[in-house]
Structures are given as structure tokens and as C-alpha cells.
């Protein structure tokens, strides 16, 4: 069934997501009037506060749409709907047929009919373009006024304050955020805002916007003039219903829909801020996501009904945590009010039953109170209920209590998922239930539930991205499931790497591992060593270690290395522990030339990768040698070199049990024994010293290489990032390693080798790539380029 979604906002994106989840491959066309791909409008205020690139708000990268066959058509406004012919007409005149149509036309900012409000310097706050306009005007503004003291108005005020503009909020109603708060809570918030330096005027009407040309002042009721040179109007939104109305679909404030989100026409649904369900037009994300779920289900022919979403919002406004649930206007109930601390907690009652809750400044126990409100529980001692809620742990919550209000996930849903699927990590709960994938505010509660249920108190898994609580498994699933190709894709999909950035090398590794090196290489996601393919030293210089397989070189090669070292005045030349030659103290800008002159492949000594295969002279010269260690070592290195691994991997091959190459303390060691070779894994001789575990004894060099390769890929796929093989083998257990690597009957070792071969086929020599490119900006300072920046650009101006 072909589905056309009209719109390009959060609702349209949510509908498209649910549609492709339910029926991958179904053709979905999104027609968005905006030129910008769907973005997170909720975070628009952060754009105003912090500035920056609206691209950062994007909900999905281009690849998401391409990979799922979602035809996202931007800047394609729809001019008309033809319900009888089941097709829509774009403003360019193209006719697009549909079998199911979903209207997600959203809303536009309401502008009150105040004389003069159209003057230059007056803005609404709805799109990134509005944001740009406001930011530009703020740069030269002395005082800004925000019309409207609702959630969006306060966010606009915060954004302007962060930009250093003096702000006054003018609100028509007697207290701030009257849809969510009662007067006392509004006063707590107003006080907090005044502390931050925002003027707050409540219960004041604006009569006129004054100015000769641009905005110069507001004329308030009572004749007071409020000077300002920037005005931002945030007094609500108007649903975009013109298209639906013109098509003959019944509309009141929004497009009227039933519980299946269907309009009067069974082939047409409406979701989000343009839709009116049981008299309610949603304004927050949670109900919109719930509606999208239902709409997608009903298109798929599944029974699903949207019964409305309990009015509950957990917000952060001006740095203050707020929770509002139910009907805050219910008169009865009790409140705890500490104006000094900026705390207000109220449980509203109606006829002895919980009707609403408001928490400002201290939101402990919100879930417990929300649960009381949601089921209209009888409350005999409301003060005790408030106090108990503040002490409540996750275990005390009823199963129906909503834990994740973004996605409407209850405690019961989470416990069910933990029990039925045997979940052990918070990231698994996120993946299975979607709890915590919205604002993430419920993750502490999710962890508490997980601990209580599994009895593994505090047993936090090793996270690939600790900031977002994402395990390696969660990232790998995401990369595989959504066919992501870069660390930036992962960041866009789940936020990993955006907060502190420290996990980006881990994420980049996981993407390259899953895609067998068919990933998009991004310098920013790599540690400096991997950006410039050299090892950074304590003084910021680098070391250069060319590939010398098996530690076997030649006079000609040595002469070349010596010449390069002399020519570039390399401060130190040293033989490494891995039988290589290290040129130390090289400046970043010298690197490309040195590589070009060496003409040798990179030794990857700077990378979490297969480093070196150390060898003894084996049967070539040693009178004790019983196996050709040099031949096997060089072949092994040739097959594995350049492969990235969770941590560095050092190998060695010894030609007899005297073990001169010290293979028994390497990540992978191969030792010649009577009648064949022994392969050992998990050895170490660094800060930890560990004798490698015997993995297998085989007859031929080819078999030894095969076992080593299989183990390497098993390690690549299953170790945590930065987990050395000795820790990995100890964690997994050598028995399990043997089963995975040696049980050829299972077919798994063969598959491991196939994936390794795929990855290896895509390995390139980074030094040669840089030399062929002729260096690049990563190796020079800004302004060191052949055309000096200082003479190029137009004359500089003054900073405002």
C-alpha cells in the first residue's frame, strides 16, 4: 500500500518511522514544504541559546531515508488533496496518488492582532529561520520583549538572556505557564527568572507596538511604555488545516480524527499539531509519538486506538525542573512551598481523589504522583502522599506508573521486557522498550528497576558511550539494524559521541568492524594518531614506524631509512621491542614527505590495530629451529596487517619451544613444536604479565595461520573497545574461545574468516593514500597553505 505523508516535522517523521518499522519496503513518500530535512523543533530553543548549525537538529541523516525507501521530497508544498481520486497535487502541479494519506501539516505561530506587530524587529519563534532572524537582531539589541509566558516564550527568553540581551516577558494571564502550573508554582518560576535577570510582567495586555519603522516600544494596558528594540511573539500556535478544509474534511480547531487517527475520509489520517482528537490538539511530543504509532498501525490494518495521553509534562525551564500532571486548576489538595529554595510541590484533589500534581524545583517522586493522578486514586492523607512520593523508590511504583513519558512506557512494560527477554543492561531496555530514547531523563529510574529486578546492584555494563549509556552491543545493533556508515550517522541516530566525544574512536571502530571496512572514514572520530597515521609523543611531535614484516629488512631498505632520517634531521632512530625501526621526534608537517621518501607501508604502530609479528630466525639459520618462523611470521603479518582491532594486537612466531620471539606473552603467539605448531592467545608482558592460553595444536603452517586469523576476527567482533586480548580471553574463558574458534562443524569459524577476508580486502595503506593526495590540511597549521590567508580575504570588520 503506498502511503503519502504530507509534512516534514516531528509528527511526519514519527509516522514515517513507524510505517517502515511495521512494514519495511512499503513505499512511503514524504512531501515537506520546508527546504530543510525533518529536524527536532523541540530543540529550537537550544539553537537560539547556543547558536550554531540547524543541521545539528536533524532527526535522521539522508542515508536513513534512502536506505528505507522513504522518498523524502523537500520544498514540495502540497496545493490540494483530491480525496475522491486519492491523490494530492503539489504546488508544482505534480499529481501523486496514494492509497493512504497522513496529514502532518503541523501548525504555525499565532500572531495576535496587535497594531504595529508587523514592524521590523518583530519575530515569531517557530523555525530555524526565525531563530537566525532573532539571533541577528539580538546582536544589536539593547532590550528584548517576549510576548507570552508559556513554555516556548520562556525558552525564547532564556535564549535571548544567554545571548546577553536584557529581556522582559509580558504575559496576558496572571501567572506563567498557566496551562501547566497554578499561580503559586508560576510565582516560584517567576522568582527564579527574576533572579536570573529576566523581567516578568504577568496579567498585562499589550495594546500596541510602537516605533517609527522598527519596533521601539510596547504600549501596555494602563498606558505604560516598555522600550524594546526586539520583539518575539510566542502566544501559541494555529493548526494548519486549510488543506484539509479545502478538501472537504471536517475541521474544528484542528482536523477532526477518531481513535484510529482517521478523518472523515477512511483513507486520510491526521497526526500531530494539525489534528484534533476528542477536542484536544496536542502540543507536546509524547502524544504526537503515540498518535503516530496508532496511525501507522491502523494503516497496516492492525487494531489500534489512541485514547488521548494523560496530560503530563516533565520539563526544564530556565534551569528549573518542572512536572505537571492532570488538572492543575483543581482547587483542593495540599502544597509544600519553600520560596527560599524555589521549591513547590502540590497534589491537587477533587472529591478526595488525586486530580493533578505540580512539582517545581524538586521533582522527586514524580512517577508515583503521576500514577496516583492517572488512576484518580483516593487519597485520604495528601500531605503523607506527597512526603511518601519524595521517598519512593522505583520498587514502590505501581506497574501502571509511567516511567518514560516521552514514549509512554510504564514500569510494567519495562519489567515485562526485562523478565521476558532476559535483559541485563540499561541499553538493552532502551532498545527493547524505547524508554529513555527521548529526553533520557528516566534512565536513572530504568537502571534502578533493572537492578532491583536482576539483583545485580550497580553491575553497570562496560559502555561504548558512557554519556548515553550505550553498550557495544547496542551500538553494533544500531549500526547493523540501520545500516549506518559513520560515527556521525551513529551520533545522529543515538547521540553517542556528541557529549564528551571520547567514545568516538570506539564508535568509529565498531562501524568499521560491522561494515567490514565499507564505512565512511571520518578524521574527527579518530584519535590524533589515526588522523595523522603516526604516534603522538609527549612534546606533540610524532614517531614514524614503517612496516618491516617479521622484522626482516635489507641493506637497501636500511640505507633508505638512514638517508631519510639524516635528510629530515630526525632526532632519534631506535629499534623497537617489536623488531621495527622507529624515527622519533618528527613534526606533523614533515610526515607526508618522510613517508613518500621511505616508500614503505605504514607499520600501524600508532593505532589500535595489528601491530607487529615478531619472529626468531627459525629454520633459516638457527641450529635448533624446527619450524620456519620467519616464513610463517611474514605470511601472518601480510594477511593481518592494517586491520583495526579493539586494542593493539602484537604477535610473535617462534621456531622452537625455546621461544626466542617470546610468543607466549603475545596477544597471538605461534610456537613450533615437534610435529607442528602450537597457537596460543591472550598473553601479555606489559603492565600486566600473563602467559598465553594454548588455543590449538596443528600440523601445518597453513592451519596455524587459519586458527590465528579466526581468533583475531572473534576478538575483533566480541571484545570491548580497549580490551586487550588477555582481559578478553580471561573474561570469556579459553574454553568458550576454543568452541567459537575451533568448532568447524558449527560453521561459525568459517563465517568469522569470511568476514575477516571481507574486511581485509578493504584495507588500504594510509601513508600511501596521504602521499598520493599530496598531504592535506590535517598536517599543516591553518594559514600555512600555499596561498596565505592573510592576503586573500576581504578586509576584516569590527566584532559587534
Amino acid at each position, binding site marked *: 500500500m503506498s502511503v503519502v505523508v504530507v509534512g516534514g516535522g516531528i509528527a511526519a517523521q514519527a509516522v514515517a518511522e513507524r510505517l517502515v518499522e511495521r512494514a519495511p519496503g512499503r513505499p512511503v513518500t514524504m512531501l515537506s514544504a520546508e527546504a530543510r530535512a525533518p529536524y527536532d523543533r523541540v530543540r529550537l530553543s537550544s539553537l537560539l541559546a*547556543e*547558536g*550554531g*548549525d540547524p*543541521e*545539528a537538529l536533524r532527526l535522521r541523516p539522508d542515508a536513513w531515508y534512502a536506505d528505507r525507501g522513504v522518498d523524502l521530497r523537500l520544498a514540495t508544498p502540497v496545493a490540494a488533496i483530491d480525496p475522491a481520486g486519492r491523490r494530492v497535487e503539489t504546488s508544482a502541479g505534480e499529481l501523486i496518488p496514494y492509497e493512504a494519506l497522513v496529514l502532518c501539516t503541523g501548525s504555525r505561530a499565532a500572531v495576535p492582532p496587535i497594531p504595529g506587530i508587523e514592524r521590523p524587529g518583530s519575530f515569531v519563534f517557530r523555525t530555524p529561520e526565525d531563530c537566525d532572524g532573532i539571533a541577528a537582531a539580538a546582536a544589536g539589541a539593547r532590550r528584548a520583549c517576549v510576548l507570552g509566558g508559556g513554555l516556548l516564550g520562556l525558552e525564547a527568553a532564556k535564549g535571548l538572556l544567554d545571548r546577553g540581551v536584557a529581556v522582559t516577558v509580558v504575559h496576558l494571564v496572571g501567572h506563567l505557564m498557566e496551562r501547566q502550573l497554578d499561580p503559586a508554582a508560576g510565582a516560584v518560576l517567576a522568582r527564579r527568572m527574576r533572579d536570573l535577570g529576566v523581567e516578568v510582567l504577568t496579567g498585562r495586555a499589550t495594546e500596541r507596538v510602537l516605533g517609527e519603522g522598527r519596533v521601539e516600544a510596547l504600549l501596555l494596558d494602563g498606558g505604560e511604555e516598555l522600550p524594546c528594540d526586539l520583539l518575539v511573539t510566542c502566544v501559541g500556535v494555529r493548526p494548519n488545516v486549510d488543506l484539509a478544509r479545502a478538501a472537504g474534511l471536517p475541521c474544528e480547531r484542528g482536523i477532526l480524527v477518531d481513535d484510529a487517527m482517521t478523518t472523515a475520509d477512511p483513507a486520510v489520517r491526521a497526526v500531530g499539531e494539525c489534528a484534533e482528537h476528542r477536542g484536544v490538539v496536542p502540543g507536546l511530543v509524547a502524544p504526537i509519538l503515540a498518535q503516530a504509532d496508532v496511525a501507522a498501525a491502523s494503516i497496516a490494518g492492525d487494531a489500534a486506538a489512541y485514547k488521548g495521553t494523560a496530560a503530563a509534562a516533565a520539563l526544564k525551564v530556565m534551569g528549573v525542573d518542572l512536572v505537571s500532571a492532570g488538572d492543575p486548576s483543581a482547587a483542593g489538595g495540599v502544597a509544600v512551598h519553600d520560596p527560599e529554595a524555589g521549591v513547590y510541590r502540590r497534589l491537587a484533589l477533587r472529591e478526595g481523589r488525586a486530580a493533578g500534581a505540580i512539582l517545581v524545583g524538586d521533582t522527586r517522586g514524580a512517577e508515583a504522583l503521576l500514577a496516583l493522578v492517572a488512576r484518580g486514586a483516593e487519597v485520604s492523607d495528601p500531605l503523607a502522599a506527597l512526603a511518601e512520593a519524595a521517598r519512593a523508590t522505583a520498587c514502590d511504583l505501581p506497574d501502571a506508573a509511567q516511567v518514560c513519558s516521552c514514549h509512554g512506557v510504564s514500569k510494567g512494560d519495562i519489567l515485562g521486557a526485562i523478565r521476558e527477554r532476559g535483559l541485563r543492561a540499561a541499553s538493552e531496555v532502551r532498545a527493547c522498550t524505547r524508554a529513555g530514547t527521548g529526553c533520557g531523563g528516566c534512565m536513572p529510574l530504568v537502571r534502578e528497576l533493572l537492578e532491583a529486578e536482576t539483583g545485580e546492584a550497580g553491575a553497570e555494563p562496560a559502555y561504548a558511550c558512557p554519556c548515553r549509556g550505550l553498550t557495544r552491543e547496542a551500538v553494533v545493533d544500531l549500526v547493523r539494524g540501520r545500516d549506518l556508515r559513520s560515527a*556521525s550517522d551513529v551520533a545522529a541516530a543515538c547521540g553517542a*559521541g*556528541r*557529549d*564528551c*566525544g*571520547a567514545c*568516538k*574512536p570506539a564508535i568509529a571502530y565498531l562501524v568499521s568492524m560491522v561494515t567490514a571496512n565499507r564505512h565512511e572514514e*571520518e*578524521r*574527527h*572520530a579518530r*584519535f*590524533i594518531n589515526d*588522523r595523522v597515521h603516526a604516534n*603522538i609523543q*609527549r*612534546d*606533540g611531535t610524532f614517531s614514524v614506524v614503517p612496516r618491516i614484516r617479521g622484522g626482516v629488512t635489507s641493506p637497501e631498505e636500511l640505507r633508505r631509512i638512514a638517508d631519510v632520517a639524516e635528510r629530515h634531521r630526525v632526532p632519534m632512530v631506535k629499534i623497537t621491542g617489536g623488531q621495527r625501526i622507529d624515527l622519533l621526534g618528527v613534526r606533523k608537517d614533515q610526515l607526508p614527505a618522510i613517508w613518500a621518501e621511505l616508500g614503505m607501508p605504514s607499520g600501524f604502530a600508532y593505532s589500535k590495530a595489528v601491530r607487529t609479528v615478531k619472529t626468531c630466525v627459525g629454520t633459516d639459520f638457527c641450529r635448533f629451529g624446527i619450524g620456519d618462523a620467519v616464513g610463517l611470521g611474514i605470511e601472518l603479518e601480510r594477511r593481518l596487517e592494517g586491520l583495526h582491532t579493539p586494542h593493539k594486537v602484537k604477535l610473535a612466531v617462534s621456531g622452537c619451544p625455546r621461544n626466542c620471539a617470546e610468543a607466549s606473552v603475545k596477544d597471538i603467539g605461534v610456537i613450533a613444536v615437534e610435529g607442528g605448531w602450537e597457537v596460543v592467545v591472550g598473553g601479555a608482558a606489559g603492565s600486566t604479565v600473563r602467559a598465553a592460553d594454548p588455543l590449538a595444536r596443528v600440523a601445518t603452517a597453513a592451519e596455524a595461520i587459519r586458527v590465528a586469523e579466526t581468533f583475531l576476527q572473534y576478538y575483533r567482533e566480541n571484545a570491548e573497545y580497549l580490551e586487550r586480548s588477555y582481559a578478553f580471553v580471561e573474561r570469556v574463558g579459553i574454553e568458550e574461545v576454543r568452541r567459537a574458534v575451533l568448532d568447524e562443524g558449527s560453521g561459525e569459524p568459517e563465517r568469522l574468516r569470511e568476514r575477516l577476508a571481507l574486511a581485509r580486502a578493504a584495507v588500504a595503506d594510509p601513508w600511501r593514500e596521504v602521499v598520493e593526495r599530496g598531504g592535506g*590540511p*590535517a598536517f599543516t*597549521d*591553518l*594559514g600555512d*597553505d600555499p596561498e596565505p*590567508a*592573510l592576503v*586573500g*580575504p*576581504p578586509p*576584516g*570588520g*569590527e*566584532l*559587534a
Partner: protein
Amino acid sequence: MIASGRLVPIGRAEDVPRLEARTVTVAGRRIAVYHTPAGYRATDADCPHRGGPLADGLMGDGCVTCPLHGWRFDLGTGEAVGQDARVAVHAVVERDGWLYLAPPG
């Protein structure tokens, strides 16, 4: 933070790719210029800990981590995370594809 002053052109914006940083010398002072998702930022180039090259660090959306010993700095304020230290921040703007710095006072 340098609030005002004549702007000095320091290079092409395209030479500082998104989420990367470059070093530049302005009036004898080494400056690191970063391209964050929220725009360009600049700090002194050397980590106040042991002089590590901050432009070679890993960036989050709003911070950089020194590649030598992992000190992390907020690119808005220059403050170190978990350390009583800060790195000087400078004003940098992009106009028509060029980056300009307010010269260090």
C-alpha cells in the same frame, strides 16, 4: 574572551572541517580554531596542563579533550572539566567562507 577589536583573517573556513580543529599563529600567539556544530570556537593552542596540542584533541559537540593526558575543556568558557584550570578563549567569526579572529590583546 576578547569582546571587540579589529578582526584578523586567519584562513578559510573550509580548512577547518566540522568537528575538527586547526592551529594558527596570530600575532605570535598559537591559537586552536574549532568547528563545532554550533559554529567556530577558538582557544589558546596549548593545554595548560603540559602543553599538549588541543587542536589535535577529540571533540564533542561543545568540548575538546587534550590528546596527551585527557584534560577536557569546555569550548564556550575554556574551563577544564574536573580540574581547576582554564584555557583562554577567543572570539572567532566566519564571514563569506573566511575565518576571522579578534587579535589576542
